[in-house]
C-alpha cells in the first residue's frame, strides 16, 4: 500500500518521538563534540570559551606530548582480538547449544548470564580472581611455578582485559548466532544429508553461509563496541599497563588529568574517525559476502 498526501501524516507523527530522541541524544551531542574539539572549553562555569581552530588536533597528533599512537595500537589490538575471538567462540557456543543436549536451556541461560551482570561487578570479580597476592588464579599458577602481576603486568593486562570483555559479551553474540541457526530450515539439512554431507560439511556449506546476516550483525557490533570500550578497562586497569585504549585515553583526559574538555573531544573525534574507517571497510565486505552466499 502506498500512502500519499495527508495519509502520510500519522506515519510521520509516530516517527517523531523516535526521531526527536535520536536528534537530542545522538546527533546534537555528536555535533557538539565536533564543535567543542575546536575550542578550549574546560567546563568551568562562567569561563569564556575560545575558538582555537585546529590547535587541539595539532596537540593530539604531536608525538612529543601525547600517547595517541600508543593508544591507537592498544585500541586496534583490543578491537581486533575481541571481534575475532568473540565471534569464533560465540559461533562455537551457538552450534553446541543448538544440539539436543541434556540441560540445554540451563546452558543457554548460563552463557547469557554475564550479559546481565554490571560492569563493576564483573570487574571486581575478575580483579579478585586475578589478585596476585593470594587470588585463585595466582594460587593455581603457582602450582606450575608461574607468577604474574596480572592486571598490573605490561604483558598480561591487555590479554586479560580482552578476555574479560569477551567473557562478558559472549552471551549476546551466542544468542544472535543461535537465532540465525534456528532460522535455517531443517529441510536444507535433510537435503544435505541425502547428498552425503557429514557434520563438518553441514556446518561449512549450510549453517555458516546461511547465518551470514547474524555474522554481519555480530561483527559490526563487536567492532564498534570494542573500539569505543572504556568501562571494563577503567574498572580493571584504569588504562595502565598497555591498556590505554582511545576510549580510556579520552576519559582520562576529560576527567582525570586536566579539565581540557576541548582536547578530550578531539580524541573523541579521532576515535570516531577510526570507527568510521573500520565500519566503511567492513560493512560493504560483509554485505557483499551476504549477497554472494
Amino acid at each position, binding site marked *: 500500500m502506498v500512502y500519499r498526501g495527508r495519509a502520510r501524516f500519522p506515519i510521520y507523527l509516530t516517527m517523531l518521538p523516535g526521531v526527536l530522541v535520536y536528534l537530542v541524544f545522538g546527533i546534537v551531542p555528536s555535533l557538539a563534540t565536533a564543535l567543542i574539539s575546536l575550542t*578550549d572549553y*574546560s*567546563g*568551568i*562555569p*562562567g*569561563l569564556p570559551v575560545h575558538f582555537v581552530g585546529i590547535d587541539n588536533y595539532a*596537540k593530539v597528533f604531536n608525538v*612529543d*606530548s*601525547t*600517547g595517541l599512537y600508543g593508544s591507537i595500537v592498544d585500541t586496534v589490538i583490543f578491537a581486533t582480538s575481541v571481534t575475532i575471538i568473540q565471534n569464533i567462540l560465540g559461533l562455537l557456543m551457538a552450534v553446541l547449544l543448538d544440539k539436543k543436549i541434556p540441560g540445554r536451556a540451563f546452558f543457554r541461560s548460563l552463557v547469557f548470564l554475564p550479559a546481565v551482570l554490571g560492569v563493576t561487578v564483573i570487574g571486581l570479580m575478575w*580483579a579478585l580472581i*586475578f*589478585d*596476585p*597476592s593470594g587470588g585463585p588464579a*595466582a594460587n593455581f599458577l603457582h602450582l606450575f611455578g608461574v*607468577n*604474574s*602481576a*596480572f*592486571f*598490573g*603486568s*605490561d604483558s598480561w593486562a591487555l590479554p586479560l582485559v580482552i578476555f574479560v570483555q569477551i567473557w562478558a559479551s559472549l552471551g549476546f553474540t551466542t544468542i544472535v548466532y543461535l537465532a540465525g541457526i534456528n532460522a535455517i530450515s531443517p529441510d536444507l539439512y535433510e537435503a544435505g544429508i541425502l547428498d552425503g554431507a557429514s557434520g563438518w560439511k553441514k556446518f561449512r556449506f549450510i549453517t555458516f553461509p546461511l547465518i551470514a546476516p547474524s555474522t554481519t550483525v555480530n561483527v559490526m557490533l563487536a567492532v564498534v563496541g570494542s573500539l569505543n570500550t572504556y568501562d571494563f578497562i577503567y574498572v*580493571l*586497569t*584504569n588504562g*595502565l*599497563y598497555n591498556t590505554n585504549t582511545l576510549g580510556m585515553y579520552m576519559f*582520562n583526559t*576529560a*576527567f*582525570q*588529568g*586536566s*579539565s*581540557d574538555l576541548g*582536547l578530550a573531544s578531539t580524541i573523541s573525534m579521532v576515535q570516531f574517525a577510526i570507527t568510521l574507517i573500520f565500519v566503511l571497510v567492513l560493512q560493504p565486505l560483509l554485505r557483499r559476502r551476504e549477497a554472494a552466499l
Partner: protein
Amino acid sequence: MKKLLAISVATSSLVAICVPALQAQAAAKETLNIITWVNPPAVSIIKKINQEFEAQYPNITINFQTAASTNYNTLMQTSVQGQTADIMSIHPFEPMPYHMTSSNLSPVQNWAVHGVFMNLNNQPWVKNFSKDDLGAATYNGNIYGLVTGVYQDGVFYNKDIFKKYHLSVPTTYNQLLQVCKVLQSHHVAPFFDGLQNVGPSYLMFLNSPLVTELWASKFKGADLNSALWNNQTKWTDPGFVQALTEEKQLMQYLEPNFTGVSWQDMPGGLANGKAAMLLDGSWDLSAVYTANPHINVGYFPLPGSNNPKVNTSDLFPDLTFTVLNNSPHKDAALKWLNFFASPKIYSQYVEATGISPSFIGGHYTSIASKVMGSWFGKGMPGSVDSPSLPATGPYWLQSNNWWNMQLEIYQGKYTPQQAATMFQQGWPQVTK
C-alpha cells in the same frame, strides 16, 4: 449571624497569621549538599558530625554523597558543571605551575584560579588553623578551603617482625638497605605497596621522601618547586638522579607482583604479615588496626640520605572542604564549616581519622598519634617539596606519565640518568 461573622473573622485571622509563618518555615528548610571521596573513617565521622549539625540546625538537612577515590574526579567535575554540590571536598591544589595555562592546570587548580570556590578569608575559624596548612588551599591570598589536616607518608612497620629478627629502626639509607636484606634472607617481603588501578602514582611513598631528602633539602629557604620553575635547579641534578636510583633499588624489596596488587589490599598486607613494612600514608592506619587489632605497628620516615638530619616525614594536606561560589546555600555551608571547625567537633574528626591536625593547639590520643609518636604532625610540607607537573605538555612531564617513567626505570627501559635527561629536555616547553 454576628457569631458566624466573628468565627469567620477569627478563622481568617488565624489563617492569615499561621500560613505565612508556616510558609516561611517551609521556605527556611534547606538541603545542604556535601560531597567527598571514600576514606572509611573520615566518611563515618562526617556522617556523625552531620547528624549533630542537623540536631543543632533543624532547618538544614544534609545530603551527603561519596564516591570511591578513583572515581571522585568525575563526581567533582559533574558537581561543578551541574552545580549540584554546596560543599565539595578537594585535595589541596598547591603547588601550582608558575606559568599557568588552562591546559596545564588540574581541574581543581583551574577551579581555584577561575573563582569556582568561595573566598573564606573572613571566616571565624581561619585564625585557629595552621597558616602553612591553609596555604595549600590558598591562591592569590584567598583561602579557598578548610584544610582538615595533614597525612604523613612513611614506613609503617610490624614491631614484632623487627623484634624477631633483631632489627632496629633505620635512620639512614644504608641502614634501611641492611634491614631489607636481613628480612629478605628470612624470606619475609620487606615492603608492601599496591599499584593495581591507581598505577605507579603509589610509588610516591618511595619517590616523595627520596626527592625531599636528596634533592629538595638543598634549597633551604626556597622550595624545590620554585627552584625548578626559576631554573635554579635542573632535573639532571645529582640529588634527583640519586633519588631515582634509590627508588629503583628499594622497589626490588617490594612484595612480588606489586603492580598487580590492589591499593585497597595495602593495610591488609601489613596487618596479615605479608610484609614487614608498609609504604603508605597515615590515613590507612585505622584500616591496619581494623584488619588486625593485635598488631604492634611503629613508624619511621623513609630514610633516603645517609645523613639522618635530612631524613624527615612528608606532610600532605588532605581532605579540604570548599564552598562552591554558585551554591544557593552558602550561608548554610558556612555554618557547617564553622560547626566542623569548632574544637569539640574537630577533635572527633582527628581522633577518628588519625589525621595530623591543622587546628592549632589541642591534645589528641588517636592511634596515629600513638604510632607516629614524636613524628606526629612533624615534617616537611609536601606541597613545597613536590615539583608541580603539568597535566598536558611534554609526554614524560605530564603528571600521570611522570610516575609511569619510574616504573619504566624499574623495568630497565631507562636508566635514572636517561630519565632525568628526558625530563630536563622537556622542561623548557613547560616553563616557557
